[in-house]
């Protein structure tokens, strides 16, 4: 059984779920059917192998379980907190035919924490060869790739523009969903195996790739994620309209944001990140928090559990609504105007398909508007190398080996999949590493 979400903890910016106790973990592991060719393990994009670590817990081999997790997935401790397991491993759990799935993420977190608490041996640096590899970006994809290459003996250097690693994990995912200690634990494992990270190193010069190559790097892995948030033209000139990336970043760094106390906040968007923003605003002490989305409640891309949480926190859903205008005072928005919509064609959830309904006008008094409508790659990526192929909003084109159109240049994670999950990014990083290894013969 999953631990319940504790709203009190959310407001303190502490992990919103308790860890499983030893008793919980043993009970849960004993429910596992220990499947042959286990479907949960096959469903993990990063190859964490839950079937194995659950078996290890069942047979009281707790440190073995912790080793399995960190050997297979360098961000296994992080993933235990934030993987959408109900769409991955737990969705494939055989016991679903009989009862609730095994709480795989709970067990994963238990084992990772157990390993640390009971002194699992640190990882060690592998004997290195002469091949230098550059990884751009110390987010999940870069970390996943670097971990595999370092274990194979490559000298891996990650170039990271921020002063610390983790990408979205460090700066954006709310603390109550992903405590910093979990990232710290996993990130230290990366350093222990001998990966070098060069912080405050923004790769944005013309032909950055060529100069890295000149400096002896034999292959390059681009893992820069999606660093630029989309913004709506309507809000362009107003200083109290910001994007969710910077909004969440401030809260994550300060463990809250006093400026939001008793303020009215409107979040625009209906996905998981919009809910993260709304719940965070509420946790900071905001008075009214509105969640405005074109999609109706049942059509929201966010998960049911997230929606339930938002409701428990009294987030006001303005779903099935479109913003029609605003009222401002100098460069401050004071009111948002909107109308309810209906879809002209079914199942096409795009603005062009929305028709506003007469007589449904509403006005919301707001102090802050947060736009949570997506992200795209930073513009600097295009400068990396002439001829690097992209599509859509600037997503890098890669083949099934995660190689770009330029030989020796690989990419993975959000920058090339367009935005997915942490575990997907780690998995792509790992696979890219294998292909880099093959590429270098």
């Amino acid at each position, binding site marked *: 059984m999953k631990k319940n979400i504790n709203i009190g903890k959310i407001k303190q910016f502490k992990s919103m779920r308790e860890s499983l106790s030893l008793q919980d973990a043993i009970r849960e592991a*004993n429910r596992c*059917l*220990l499947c*042959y*060719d286990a479907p949960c393990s096959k469903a993990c994009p990063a190859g964490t192998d839950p079937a194995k670590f659950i078996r290890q817990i069942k047979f009281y081999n707790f440190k073995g379980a912790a080793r399995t997790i960190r050997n297979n997935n360098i961000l296994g401790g992080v993933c235990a907190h934030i993987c959408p397991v109900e769409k991955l491993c737990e969705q494939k759990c*055989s*016991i679903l*035919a009989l009862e609730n799935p095994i709480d795989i993420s709970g067990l994963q977190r238990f084992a990772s924490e157990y390993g640390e608490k009971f002194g699992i041996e640190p990882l060690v640096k592998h004997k290195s060869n002469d091949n230098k590899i550059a990884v751009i970006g110390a987010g999940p994809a870069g970390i996943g790739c670097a971990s595999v290459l370092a274990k194979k003996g490559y000298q891996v250097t990650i170039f990271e523009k921020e002063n610390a690693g983790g990408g979205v994990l460090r700066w954006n995912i709310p603390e109550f969903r992903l405590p910093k200690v979990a990232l710290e634990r996993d990130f230290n494992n990366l350093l222990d195996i001998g990966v070098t990270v060069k912080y405050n190193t923004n790769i944005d010069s013309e032909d950055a790739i060529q100069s890295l190559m000149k400096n002896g790097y034999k292959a390059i892995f681009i893992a820069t994620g999606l660093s630029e948030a989309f913004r709506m033209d309507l809000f362009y000139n107003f200083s109290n309209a910001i994007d969710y990336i910077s909004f969440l970043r401030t809260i994550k760094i300060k463990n809250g944001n006093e400026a939001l106390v008793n303020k009215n906040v409107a979040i625009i968007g209906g996905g998981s990140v919009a809910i993260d923003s709304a719940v965070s605003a509420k946790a900071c002490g905001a008075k009214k928090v509105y969640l405005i989305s074109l999609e109706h409640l049942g059509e929201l891309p966010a998960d049911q559990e997230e929606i339930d949480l938002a409701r428990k926190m009294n987030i006001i859903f303005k779903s099935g609504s479109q913003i029609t205008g605003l009222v401002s005072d100098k460069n401050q928005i004071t009111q948002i105007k909107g109308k309810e919509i209906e879809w002209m064609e079914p199942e096409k959830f795009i603005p062009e398909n929305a028709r506003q309904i007469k007589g449904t006008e509403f006005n919301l008094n707001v102090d802050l508007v947060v736009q949570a409508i997506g992200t795209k790659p930073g513009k600097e990526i295009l400068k990396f190398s002439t001829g690097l192929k992209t599509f859509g909003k600037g997503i890098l084109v890669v083949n099934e080996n995660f190689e770009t159109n330029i030989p020796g240049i690989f990419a993975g994670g959000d920058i090339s999949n367009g935005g997915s999950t942490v575990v997907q990014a780690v998995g792509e990083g790992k696979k890219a590493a294998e292909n880099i290894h093959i590429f270098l013969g």
Partner: protein
Amino acid sequence: MTKKADLSINFCGVKFENPFCLSSSPVGNHAEMCSRAYDAGWGGIVYKTLGLEKSFKVVMPSPRLSVYNYGNKKFVGLQNAEQITDRPIKDNIRDIALLKKNYPNKILISSIMGYTDEDWSELAKMSEDAGADILELNFSCPQMAHKSAGHRVGQDFHAVAAFTEVVKKSSKLPVIAKMTPNITDMIPVAIAAKEGGADAISAINTIKAITDIDINNFTPLPNIHGHSAATGFSGPSVKPVAMRFVSDLYNSKDLNLPISAIGGIETWIDALHFLLLGATNLQVTTGILRYGYRIVEDMIEGLSDFMIERNIKSLNEIIGKATEKIVDPSEFTTRYQVISVIDEEKCIGCGQCYISCQDGANQAIKFDPKTRKASVDEERCVGCLLCKHVCPVWDCISYKEVDTKNAKHAAIF
């Protein structure tokens, strides 16, 4: 009104409204507890074993219990380091008299344990005077270290015969001799009791066992200030052993005495198992320690419904019915062969049967990695049914008979 079957039995010439009794232990420690047990529906009580203070000072160690756990399942067996009652004999005798006065139609069996002939005789007389219906002679407590008491006596035919005879001479009450399972063959001891005049046999008392060890300090549990001992084990884990002994007793032509079965009974199905193996009377301790007196309600209702469904008028119709089918393994036929059958609809695709058959049987299961369905290779299956037993879906794997003359079959060639 729910229809109720007649659950009454006649055991040692005494009528019980139902066969369900408390076995001698803390569950029948004093009058207040016993009253509540009677009120809950138990047909009889074997009172906690009485002894004489002048012969033996009872010491109750602390902690006194340890359990055997399996996976997340706690308490599949219980170990106790308890001796006979530590209450003054006069209090217990007063309680027995009070209980018989308040519950004249319920049965009270007095369990006694002496050290000398005089002890046995005195305890028998005191019990009879207090109104007990039956005596149970405790020849089987594994915690009584004395060489002339407890299970040491139960391993010594002569002592069993002699003490039983003393009791029979001192009292007119029917006598049950309670057996220890800490012995290879129970029959000679039971026959010794019969020769001493016993009217019935009860079995089993607890099995000497070690349930657990604290791996931090290498001390077995219960950890009694740094020491422990192999002591009495009871509960669900011992039921298979108890069933074997009860069946042995019932099958013995020379013995031919009524049996009170004890060991791991918790449900009406457990009860029925023992009845089918030849028991007339049934006793329970660990089930009550774990769940309380209330469990008798479900035993009564469950057994009653079973009898009504099968049109069984009296428990006598079923007592011993399963023992007819128990033979020596050498008598099994070799011309009968089964193979397992997997219901594809019910298969949930866990593949546990595949793993077990691969590593523990005859590599006779195929597992389709795409559909995740298991199927049986009929030519390789030896019909051990390991697969059926590991399957988490109760009715997914069954079996069918194969034609042993024509089949090309792993078990035959």
